C-alpha cells in the first residue's frame, strides 16, 4: 500500500491523539509551597484516578513571569494573590475567565468571595475565586522586644542590628502606613504615589543600618529568629505561627496601623488544557476536611465559611496569641495593583537595595 504524505501525517496525528486520551489527564498546578500537600494530592487522585496532579512551586512574581513567557501556557491552574490578577491580565492577557457555574460558590466566606470578585472582574468576566488568606505583619520575640508593635519599630535604634525585613512591596506599604499615609488610597493618583514612595525610600534607606540582613525566604527568616540573631522582623503570619510552636515567646504582631491581608486565589491560565480537572481540584480542596489538611500544611486560613474553625489546634493557639477581634477589624486588604505601579515599586526597592546607608 502506498501512503501519501497527507495520510501518513493524519495517521500519526490520530495515533498521538489516541495515546493522549488513553493516558491519564494531567493537572499542572502552579502554586505556593505547602498549597498542594502530598496527602491532599493522594486523596484527590484516589477520587479521580484518571487525573495526575503535577505541582510547580513558585511565588507571585514568578507565577506572572512564567505565564507571561508562554502567553498563559504550560499550567492548568495557578494561585497568585488577588492583587496580581487585574493588571497582569490587562497587560499580558494570561488568564481565562472562570465559568462560575462549575464552582460551588456556596461554600465561600461571602465577604472574601465578593472582595476577590470585585478585584478581578474585567469586562464583566470574573477571573478568580479565593482559596486561602492570611496576613503580613511583624513578629517579635516577646522576651527580648516586649514593646515591639509598629512597622516603624523595625527602624527603632533600640533594636539596632537585630531586625530584618524582606525587600518586597509589603515593607513599602507597611512603612507608608506607619508614616500616617494610606498608600492604597493614592494608587489612583500615580504622581502622589511616587511622592509617597520617595519618602518611603528615604526612610528605609536611612533605616538600613538598623537591619541585620534582608530575608529572602521563610527558611532563612526562621533560622535568624530561632537562633536569636534577630529579635523582630517583618514576616508572613504563617511563618510566625510555625515559630510560635517551637518557641512560645515568638508571636505574630499585627502592626498598630493594621496587618496587611492577602488572599491567594485560583485562576486558570489562558492556555490551560485541563479546565475540567482544574474545576474539580478547586471544588475538591474547598471541602471542610481537605481545608483542614490544607491549613495544617500552609498555616493560612481557607476562604470558606467558618474557615478559622478549621485551623488545627496549635495554629488556633498561635492566631489567638496574635490577634484580638479589634486587630481583625483593622486588617488592610491589599488593593489591586494598577498597571505601572509594579514598576514604580520595583524601582523604589532597587534604590533601597543600592543605598549605602544612613
Amino acid at each position, binding site marked *: 500500500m502506498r501512503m501519501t504524505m497527507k495520510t501518513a501525517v493524519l495517521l500519526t496525528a490520530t495515533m498521538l491523539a489516541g495515546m493522549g486520551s488513553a493516558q491519564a489527564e494531567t493537572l499542572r498546578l502552579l502554586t505556593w509551597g505547602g498549597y498542594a500537600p502530598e496527602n491532599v494530592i493522594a486523596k484527590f487522585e484516589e477520587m479521580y484516578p484518571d487525573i495526575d496532579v503535577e505541582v510547580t512551586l513558585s511565588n507571585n512574581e514568578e507565577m506572572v513571569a512564567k505565564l507571561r513567557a508562554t502567553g498563559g501556557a504550560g499550567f492548568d491552574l495557578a494561585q497568585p494573590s488577588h492583587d496580581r490578577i487585574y493588571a497582569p491580565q*490587562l*497587560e499580558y*492577557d494570561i488568564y481565562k475567565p472562570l465559568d462560575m457555574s462549575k464552582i460551588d460558590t456556596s461554600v465561600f466566606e461571602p465577604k472574601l468571595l465578593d472582595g476577590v470578585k470585585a478585584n478581578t472582574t474585567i469586562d464583566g468576566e470574573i477571573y478568580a475565586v479565593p482559596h486561602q488568606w492570611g496576613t503580613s505583619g511583624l513578629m517579635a520575640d516577646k522576651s527580648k522586644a516586649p514593646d515591639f508593635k509598629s512597622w516603624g519599630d523595625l527602624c527603632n535604634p533600640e533594636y539596632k542590628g537585630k531586625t530584618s525585613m524582606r525587600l518586597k512591596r509589603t515593607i513599602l506599604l507597611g512603612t507608608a502606613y506607619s508614616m500616617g499615609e494610606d498608600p492604597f488610597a493614592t494608587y489612583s493618583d500615580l504622581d502622589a504615589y511616587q511622592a509617597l514612595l520617595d519618602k518611603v525610600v528615604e526612610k528605609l534607606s536611612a533605616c538600613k543600618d538598623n537591619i541585620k540582613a534582608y530575608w529572602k525566604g521563610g527558611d532563612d527568616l526562621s533560622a535568624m529568629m530561632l*537562633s536569636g540573631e534577630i529579635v523582630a522582623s517583618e514576616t508572613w503570619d504563617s511563618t510566625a505561627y510555625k515559630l510560635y510552636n517551637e518557641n512560645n515567646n515568638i508571636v505574630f504582631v499585627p502592626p498598630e496601623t493594621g496587618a496587611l491581608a492577602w488572599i491567594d486565589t485560583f485562576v486558570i491560565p489562558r492556555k490551560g488544557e485541563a479546565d475540567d480537572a482544574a474545576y474539580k481540584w478547586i471544588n475538591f480542596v474547598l471541602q471542610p476536611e481537605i481545608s483542614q489538611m490544607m491549613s495544617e500544611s500552609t498555616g493560612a486560613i481557607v476562604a470558606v465559611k467558618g474557615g478559622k474553625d478549621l485551623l488545627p489546634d496549635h495554629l488556633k493557639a498561635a492566631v489567638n496569641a496574635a490577634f484580638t477581634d479589634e486587630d481583625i477589624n483593622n486588617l488592610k486588604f491589599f488593593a489591586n495593583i494598577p498597571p505601572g505601579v509594579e514598576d514604580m515599586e*520595583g524601582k523604589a526597592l532597587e534604590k533601597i*537595595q543600592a543605598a549605602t546607608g544612613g
Partner: protein
Amino acid sequence: MNQRDARRLSLILLFMPFALWILLLILLPHIGMGVLSLREKIAPRQYEFGFDNYIEFFTEPIYWHIMARTAIMSLIVTALALVIGFPVSYYIAKIAGPRTRGAMFMFCLIPLWVSDLIRAFGWILLLRETGVISGVLQWTGLISEPIELLYNDAAVIVGLVYTVMLFMIVPLTSTMDGMDDSMIEAGYNLGGNGLTVLRRIIIPYAMPGIISGSIIVFMLTAGSYLTPVLLGGKYSSWFTQTIYDQFITRYNWESGAAFGFLLLIFTSLVVWIGLKLSGQSLSSTVARS
C-alpha cells in the same frame, strides 16, 4: 564518489549537535533578547522601537554603580583564585607523583559534586553569628561575643572563590604540565633564585593558562547569581540580581533584556582589556587549553 559523500555526511552529522546547540540555545535566544531590549513600553500592551532601556542604564547611577561593584568584586575573586590556585597547580603539575596527582585533582573536583545551593548553605552554617566558626572562636576564648561573618562582601568573595577554584586550577595545571623540568633546572644553574625562576620562567610559560583560567573564572563570577544572593548582606548587590529584579519584580522584561546585553558587553570588554594588557589572544589561551 560515494565514499566522499559518506564522509561529508558523517561530518555534517557530527557537527549537527554543536550547530543546533549554538543556534537554538545561544543565537536564537540572544536575538530574541536583542529585539526585546529595543522595545520601549508606552502603555499596557503597547510598545515602540527605541533605545530607552539602554539610556536608562547610563542615566540612573544605581545601575552602573552595581555593575562596577560586580566587576570589581569579580576581579578580586579572580585574583584570589589565581593566587591560591597557582601553587596548587604547580604542585600538581611539577612536584606530585602520578598517583598523588590523580588524588589531588579528585579533591579539587569533589566540591563540584555538590550543588551550588548546598555549598552556599554550607557556608551559611559555618559563617553565621550562631554558626560553627563563631562558636569555635568563642569556645577557645578568642572572642567573648558572637561574631557575624555572614551577610557581607567578604563572605560573598569566599563563597565565590571556593566555587570557581577548579576552573582556575585545571587550565593552569594543563599548561604547566607541558613545561620541561630542565627549563627550571637551567634557571637555577644559571644562578637564578626561586623568585627569579618563578618570575622569568614559570609565570611567562604559564601565561596562557593564567589568562584562560582568569577569563573563565571572571565570566563565571560576574554571571553568578545564587552565591551573592545567599551570602551577601544588605549592602551587597550583584548585577545579575538587578537583571532578575527587572524581569520578575518589575515585570520589565525590556530593560531586563537590555541589562543582560550590557552585562555581556561589559564583561567581554574587561576580558578584551585583560588580553591586550597581557599581550595574549583568545586563540593562544582559551582555545589552546
